[in-house]
């Protein structure tokens, strides 16, 4: 092997930018085609009246936005989305945290329990929804059979506007526990064991340690999980499509389902685009919040 000549070194340096871009180009091209372009196109289309194929016909300014803000259906979908977020996110994190604390105990056979608690991460939304749909079945599902067994009357879980959002949320909490559990368990395992050892020597109780060591040390992971769950909840679609189709009376018509219906069933691409832009802004704000919190965490350390 020959020693590199100075001339070649210069050439290498000159070509650094070119070769760097070469390595990045597949990602850059695909991001451009399937992320940047469609995002700009969505913003653009939100200012136009379009035909069913999404071809812009007439500039309408903020027309779609002002129509949305005065439409009861839009506020209903915001209400459903917020309700869904509030019903799913805190409960999922609380249950997953409890499971992670249990599974972080140093006991024999823990691997089996960790596997069991993370199982729903491997389950698709479609498969899980079908199972829950059966469990919610008014005549043969397990929930109503249980109610009947204790002498109560059955509930139309997915058809009663009072229960539908709650039912879909409960199913979603179950679906999301696996992922949330795995991340929180990882966070718990990263906490320095010596902190607990000195606390043990000092004779502090489990609950004091939980409050004084575990929760503060876990807080960055909790924030992360919180924001990810929030963003995911805003993007919910599958379980709505399978369980309720946005009904009854739009009680579960969350934002992504509303966008889907507007764009692909009503062919109202302009209005769907305006809603998509609003969704984008909401997620942007949440992500920005996350970065702010991470920044604060770094400053504190």
């Amino acid at each position, binding site marked *: 092997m020959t020693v590199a000549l100075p001339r070649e070194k210069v050439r290498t340096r000159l070509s650094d930018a070119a070769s760097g871009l070469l390595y990045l180009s597949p990602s850059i091209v695909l991001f451009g085609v399937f992320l940047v372009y469609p995002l700009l196109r969505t913003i653009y289309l939100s200012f136009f009246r379009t035909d069913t194929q999404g071809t812009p016909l007439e500039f309408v300014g903020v027309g779609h936005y002002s129509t949305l803000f005065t439409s009861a259906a839009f506020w209903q979908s915001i209400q459903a989305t917020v309700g869904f977020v509030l019903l799913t996110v805190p409960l999922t994190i609380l249950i997953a945290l409890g499971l992670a604390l249990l599974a972080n105990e140093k006991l024999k056979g823990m691997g089996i329990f960790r596997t069991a608690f993370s199982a729903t991460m491997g389950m698709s939304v479609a498969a899980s929804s079908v199972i829950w749909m059966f469990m919610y079945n008014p005549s043969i599902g397990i929930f109503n059979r249980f109610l009947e067994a204790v002498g109560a009357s059955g509930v139309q879980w997915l058809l009663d506007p009072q229960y539908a959002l709650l039912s879909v949320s409960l199913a979603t909490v179950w679906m999301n526990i696996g992922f949330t559990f795995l991340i929180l368990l990882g966070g718990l*395992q990263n906490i320095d064991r010596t902190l607990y050892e000195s606390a043990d020597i000092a004779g502090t109780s489990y609950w004091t340690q939980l409050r004084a060591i575990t929760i503060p040390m876990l807080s960055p992971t909790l924030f992360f999980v919180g924001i990810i769950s929030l963003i995911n909840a805003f*993007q919910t679609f599958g379980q709505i499509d399978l369980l309720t189709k946005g009904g009854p009376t739009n009680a579960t018509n969350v934002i992504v389902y509303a966008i889907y219906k507007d764009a692909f069933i009503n062919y109202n691409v302009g209005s769907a685009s305006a809603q998509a832009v609003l*969704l984008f802004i909401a997620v942007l704000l949440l992500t920005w919040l996350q970065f702010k919190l991470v920044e604060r965490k770094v400053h504190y350390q």
Partner: protein
Amino acid sequence: MRLRNISVYVLLVLCAVVMLFPIAYAFSISLMDGKEVLQGHLLPREPSLENYVAAFERIPMMTYLLNSLIVALLVMIGQVVLSSLAAFAFVFIDFKGKGLIFMLFLATMMVPWEATMVPNFLTIQSLGWLNSVWGLSVPFFALAFGTFLLRQQFKTIPYEMYEASQIAGISRFRFFCNVVLPVSKTPIVTLSVYSFLTTWNMYLWPLLVTNTEQARTVQIGIKQMQSNEVASDWGVVMAAVILIIIPTLVLLFAGQKHLQEGLTQGAIK
């Protein structure tokens, strides 16, 4: 101390039973005949695999499974290749504007995919990729999370090794293939498991870009089944559910440790 351990075990078992109940219930239903399902039994009197046979005979389950497998493998390979190439450039190649491009990569994570689905659908349509594995896979090849994950790993490789290889006249691409990739097996496995799981379980996009039996993935197949079949065929539907969750459950259990470490890294660093 003894008592405490026993109560922890009791809690663990209770929680595991509740968490696994829906899966076990679905499995139990999948072994029942139609009459028994309607009677609302918890366990089958005479378990039979009839429903599994029916799932393959009455619906194109095999086609769905194959489609999902091909698409998930394509996305997995695409994401690993593109993410590792990009991560390599971010770590080992110096050029102007690298920091800015990296920030832009991270910024793509802020765009909810649903906000771009309408133009993406139109793009795929104009490419003639509706009902094709390309339309189902190519839009997902570039992945900021994957690039970020692999970049973290590549940064732990000593830069001196790279300089030494340059002086020895080894090309960049050979260094990438022969040194960087082999020492990064763990995060690559993590990323692969993550890619496969998320793609196999994808729902909204396949719903938009497939409308023929030949092109559907398992997730859309099961939606079709559930909306077409009458309630008395729940046994067959549940058999299909069990069939489509087995590959991902096996993968999850095999790759759980990797996945947990990888995802936590993303959370903490």
